C-alpha cells in the first residue's frame, strides 16, 4: 500500500512538474505542450487474484502534429516570400509613382519647354528653360537608375544576411540531430524539448527558404532545399555561400557547397525566394524598361535635333549623350544611368529646318509648297548640306505634273499633281519610284517630305534651298521645334517583351509617356498582386497556426485546471501514505 502511495505520489509529482513546465514555457517560441501519460503498474498476483500495484508514468508525450507542422513551414515559406517580394516591389512602386521622381512629369516639363521654344524660337530665356528641363529629365533618369541599382544592392545585402542565417540554422539543426540521436539511444523516452528546439530551428529556416524534411529512424532529421539539395544530413551540413552572377558580377547568387555551384534558379520560398523573384520580376524588368526608354528617347530626339539648324546656322548635333552607337561600334549604349544633356549653349538648340522655300515671283496660281519633314536617318546626313543644290518644282499644266529639277537636272523626276484631287497630298521625295511619279536619278535624292496645295498655273515654280547656304538668317523658323514637340505624342517606341526584356518586332506602338505608364502599371500590378497574395498566405498561415496551436499550444486555464487536478491527486496520494502509516501502526500496536 505504501508502494502504491509512493507510485501515486511520484507519478503525480511528474504530472505536476510537466504542468509547471507547460506553464513556465507558455511564451517559449516553438514549445509544444507536454502531457504525462500514466498507466497502471503490473498487478501483483496474490491468492489467485491480481491486485493493483499503483500507477507509473508510461511516457511524457509531446503534443505534436507532424502534418500541421509541415503545413506551417510551407505557409511560412510562401508568406515570407511574398512579404519580402511585396516590401521591395512597394519600394519600386513608390519610386516610380512619386511626383518628384516620376519620368512622366519630367517628360511633360521638357516638352512644354519645347513648345515654348517653338512659340518664340529666338527667345534665349525660352531656350535656356528647355535646356534646364532636358537636364532635369536626364537627371531623373539617372536618379531612377541609381535608386533601382541601390535596390539591387539591398537585395545582395539581404541575400548575404539570409545565407549567413541559413548556415547558422543548419549547423544548429545538425548539432541538435547529434544530441537527439545520442539522447534517444538506449532509452524509450523522447527528448521532447530538444525536438522542440530542432523543430523551431527548421521553422526559422523555412522563413528563409522552402525546406523539406525527412525523418530518419535514429531520430535525426535530414533537411533539403531547392529541388533536393541536402542542407543537413544527420550531423553534417552543407553550407551555402554568395557567388557573383557569371554575366553580371554586381548581382549576387546563391552558391551551394564548397564549389559554390549557383542554385538560385532552384530555390523557392522564404525571404531568399522573395529576394530572387522580386529582382527577376520587378527590379530587372523596371531597369530594362527605363533603359529602353532612355535609349529610345535619346535616339529619337537626337535624330530629330540633328535635322535642324542652330541659331548660328550650324547643324544641330546630339541633344542627349551618349549617342546610340552604330553597330559594330563598341561605344557605350545610352541607358538610364549614363544619359546626360549634350548641349550647354541655348543657341545650339536646333529649332529651324535647314530648308527654305521660295515661291516663284511670277507665279499666278494659288499653289503652295510646304516642307513637312526632313529625314536625317542617313548616317552621312548633315543639316548644313541637306540640299546640295537648288531643288526646283515647275508645274506643267498640260501633263498635270511638277517637273522637279535637282542640281540643274530636270529631265527625269516628275510628281503627278492634279489640283482637283491631289491638293494637300504629302509626297516623300525618297519614295517617288511608285508610278505615276518618277524618282530621282541615281542615289541623289533630297531627304524631304513635302505637301503640295492649291491650284498651280502653268510654269508656276517653287525652289528649295538650304537655309544655311550663303549665311543663315531664318532664326525665326520653328519647324524643327514643332517636330521635336510632336515627339511627345508620336508613337516612337516598340513594346518590350515582358519575359525576355527585348523589344518585340513590328511598328512602334508607344510614345515615351505610354512606355512609362506601362512600366508603372506593370510594377503596380505585380506589387498589388504580391500584396493580395501575401494577405492570402498570411490568412492561411494564421489558420494553420491556430490548428497547430490548438494541438501544441499551452492554454493557461487548462494548465490551471490540471494543476488543481494533480494537486488533489497528490493530496489524495499523500492520504494513502498516511492511511498506510495508520494501518501499519495499528498492526504494530496490535502486537
Amino acid at each position, binding site marked *: 500500500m505504501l508502494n502504491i502511495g509512493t507510485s501515486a505520489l511520484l507519478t503525480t509529482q511528474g504530472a505536476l512538474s510537466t504542468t509547471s513546465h507547460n506553464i513556465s514555457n507558455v511564451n517559449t517560441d516553438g514549445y509544444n505542450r507536454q502531457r504525462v501519460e500514466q498507466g497502471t503498474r503490473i498487478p501483483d498476483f496474490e491468492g489467485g487474484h491480481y491486485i493493483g500495484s499503483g500507477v507509473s508514468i508510461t511516457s511524457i508525450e509531446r503534443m505534436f502534429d507532424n502534418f500541421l507542422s509541415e503545413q506551417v513551414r510551407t505557409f511560412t515559406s510562401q508568406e515570407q516570400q511574398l512579404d519580402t517580394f511585396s516590401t521591395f516591389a512597394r519600394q519600386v512602386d513608390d519610386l516610380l509613382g512619386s511626383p518628384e521622381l516620376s519620368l512622366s512629369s519630367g517628360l511633360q516639363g521638357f516638352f512644354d519647354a519645347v513648345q515654348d521654344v517653338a512659340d518664340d524660337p529666338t527667345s534665349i530665356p525660352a531656350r535656356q528653360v528647355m535646356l534646364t528641363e532636358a537636364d532635369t529629365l536626364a537627371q531623373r533618369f539617372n536618379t531612377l537608375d541609381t535608386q533601382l541599382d541601390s535596390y539591387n544592392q539591398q537585395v545582395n545585402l539581404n541575400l548575404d544576411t539570409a545565407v549567413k542565417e541559413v548556415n547558422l540554422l543548419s549547423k544548429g539543426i545538425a548539432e541538435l540531430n547529434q544530441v537527439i540521436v545520442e539522447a534517444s539511444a538506449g532509452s524509450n523516452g523522447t527528448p521532447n524539448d530538444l525536438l522542440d528546439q530542432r523543430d523551431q530551428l527548421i521553422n526559422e529556416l523555412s522563413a528563409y527558404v522552402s525546406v523539406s524534411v525527412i525523418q530518419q529512424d535514429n531520430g535525426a532529421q535530414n533537411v533539403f532545399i531547392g529541388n533536393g539539395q541536402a542542407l543537413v544530413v544527420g550531423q553534417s551540413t552543407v553550407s551555402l555561400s554568395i557567388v557573383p552572377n557569371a554575366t553580371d558580377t554586381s548581382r549576387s547568387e546563391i552558391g551551394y557547397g564548397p564549389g559554390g555551384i549557383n542554385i538560385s534558379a532552384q530555390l523557392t520560398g522564404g525571404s531568399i525566394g522573395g529576394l530572387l523573384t522580386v529582382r527577376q520580376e520587378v527590379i530587372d524588368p523596371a531597369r530594362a524598361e527605363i533603359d529602353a526608354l532612355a535609349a529610345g528617347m535619346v535616339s529619337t530626339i537626337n535624330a530629330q535635333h540633328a535635322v535642324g539648324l542652330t541659331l548660328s546656322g550650324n547643324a544641330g548635333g546630339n541633344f542627349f549623350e551618349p549617342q546610340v552607337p552604330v553597330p559594330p561600334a563598341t561605344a557605350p549604349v545610352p541607358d538610364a544611368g549614363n544619359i546626360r544633356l549634350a548641349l550647354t549653349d541655348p543657341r545650339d538648340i536646333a529649332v529651324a529646318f535647314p530648308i527654305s522655300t521660295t515661291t516663284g515671283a511670277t507665279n499666278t496660281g494659288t499653289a503652295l509648297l510646304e516642307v513637312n519633314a526632313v529625314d536625317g536617318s542617313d548616317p552621312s546626313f548633315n543639316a548644313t548640306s541637306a540640299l546640295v543644290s537648288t531643288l526646283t518644282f515647275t508645274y506643267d499644266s498640260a501633263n498635270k505634273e511638277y517637273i522637279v529639277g535637282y542640281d540643274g537636272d530636270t529631265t527625269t523626276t516628275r510628281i503627278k499633281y492634279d489640283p482637283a484631287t491631289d491638293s494637300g497630298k504629302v509626297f516623300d521625295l525618297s519614295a517617288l519610284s511608285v508610278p505615276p511619279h518618277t524618282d530621282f536619278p541615281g542615289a541623289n535624292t533630297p531627304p524631304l517630305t513635302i505637301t503640295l496645295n492649291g491650284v498651280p498655273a502653268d510654269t508656276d515654280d517653287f525652289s528649295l534651298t538650304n537655309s544655311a547656304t550663303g549665311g543663315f538668317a531664318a532664326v*525665326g523658323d520653328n519647324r524643327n521645334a514643332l517636330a521635336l514637340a510632336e515627339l511627345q505624342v508620336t508613337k516612337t517606341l516598340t513594346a518590350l517583351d515582358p519575359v525576355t526584356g527585348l523589344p518585340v518586332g513590328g511598328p512602334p506602338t508607344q510614345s515615351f509617356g505610354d512606355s512609362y505608364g506601362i512600366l*508603372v502599371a506593370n510594377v503596380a500590378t505585380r506589387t498589388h498582386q504580391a500584396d493580395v497574395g501575401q494577405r492570402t498566405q498570411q490568412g492561411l498561415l494564421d489558420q494553420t497556426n491556430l490548428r497547430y496551436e490548438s494541438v501544441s499550444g499551452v492554454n493557461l486555464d487548462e494548465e490551471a485546471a490540471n494543476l488543481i487536478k494533480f494537486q488533489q491527486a497528490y493530496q489524495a496520494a499523500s492520504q494513502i501514505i498516511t492511511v498506510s502509516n495508520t494501518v501499519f501502526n495499528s498492526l504494530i500496536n496490535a502486537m
Partner: protein
Amino acid sequence: MRVSTSYIFDQNLTAMLNQQTELAKTQLQVSTGKRILNPSDDPAGSVQILNLQREFSVTEQYLTNADKAENKQTLEEGSLQSATDILQRVRELAVQGLNDTNTQTDRQAIAAEMNQLNEQLLAIANTRDSNGDYVFSGFKSNSQPYETLNGDYQGDEGQRNMKVGAGVLIETNDAGNTVFESKHISTEMSKTATGVGSDSNISLIRIDGATELSTPLTFTYDTSVNPAVYNVSDGNGNTATIPYSSTDNGLNVDLSTLNPALPKLTIELTGVSPINADQFTLQTTTSNQSMFKTIDQFAKALEANQVSASNGPNNGDFLTNISSSMNTVVDTQAKIGSRLNAIDIQREINDGISFNMEKTLSEVQDLDYAEAISRLTLQMTGLQAAQQSFAKVQGLSLFNYL
C-alpha cells in the same frame, strides 16, 4: 477547439496592429485628399491618372500657345489696321494732288505729308515684337524686312505655326512680301510702227478708273479712207475709229465715248503729218512692287509737278495701285481675323477638354471624403473595441481564482 493562450494574445495583437495600419492609411488619405497613395493601390487607376495628367497638361500647353498666338496676331492686326488707315489717307492725298487746280507748291506740300506717311508705313512693316523679332520678315526674324523705301524685301516666305490643339497648327505671322507688296500696274503708250518722217504722236493724258488692259490697245493710222482715221482695236473685237487730219493737232478723245466697251481713257493726238500705218500700242505691264516704292515714286512725281498720265512712271495708275495695296493689307487682316477666330474656337474646345479631364482626374484620383470619414470613424471604433476587448480578455484567467 482548444486555443492556446499565446495564440489568443498574438491574434489580438495582430488584429490591433492591422487595424492601426488601415487607420493610418485612411488618415493619410484624408489628409492628402488622394484616393490612390501608391500606384499599387489601384494599378489601373494610377495609369489612368498618369495619362490624364499628361493629356491635361498638354491641353494646358495648347491654351498657353493659343494665348501667345493671339498676342502675336493681335499685334500684327493692330499694325495692319494702322497701315490701312495710313493708306486711306495716302489715297485721299493722291486724289487731292491729282486735281488739276493744284499748283506745284500745293503738290509739294501734299508730297511732304505723303512722304511722312510713307515713313510711318515703313516703320509698321519693320515692327518688332516683345522679343525684338521683326514681325513681317518671315523666318528671318532678325533681318529688317525693308531697310529703305525703295529697298527690296529682306525677309523670307516663312510662316511660323503654333500648335493650339491636337493636330491644329495656326499661322502666327505673315511674310512682309505678302502684305506690303502687291500687283503694280503701269499703263504706257508706245509707238510701234511709223512712216518716214512722221511726227505723229498719241499720248495718254487721263486715266479714270481701273485701267488694267488684258490685251494691248492698238491705234493704226489709215489713210485709205476719207477722211483718214486712227483705227482703234483692243484685240477682242471692240473697235472704234478716230478721224484725224493735220488740222486736228492736239485733239483730245475719251475712248469710252466712242465705244463703251473700251476703257475710260483720255488720249491726246498730235502731229501735223501722220503717215499711213503709223501705229501706237497702249499696254499695261504688271509687276510686284512694295507699296513704299509705289508711294515714293508718286510723291516724287507730285513734288516735280509731273502727275499727268503721260509722265512716267505712269502716275495715272497710282490710285489703282494704292487700292490694290490696300486690298492686300485688308485681305491679310481678314486672314488674321479668321485665325483669331480659329484660335478662339480651339480655345473653347481645349477649355472644354481641360474641364472634363480635370473632372475625370478628380473622380479617379480624389478621395470621396464622406466615404473616407465614415470609414475612418468605423476603423476608430473597431480599433477601440479591439483594445478594450483585449484588456478584458487578458484579465480572464483561472489563476485569478487559485
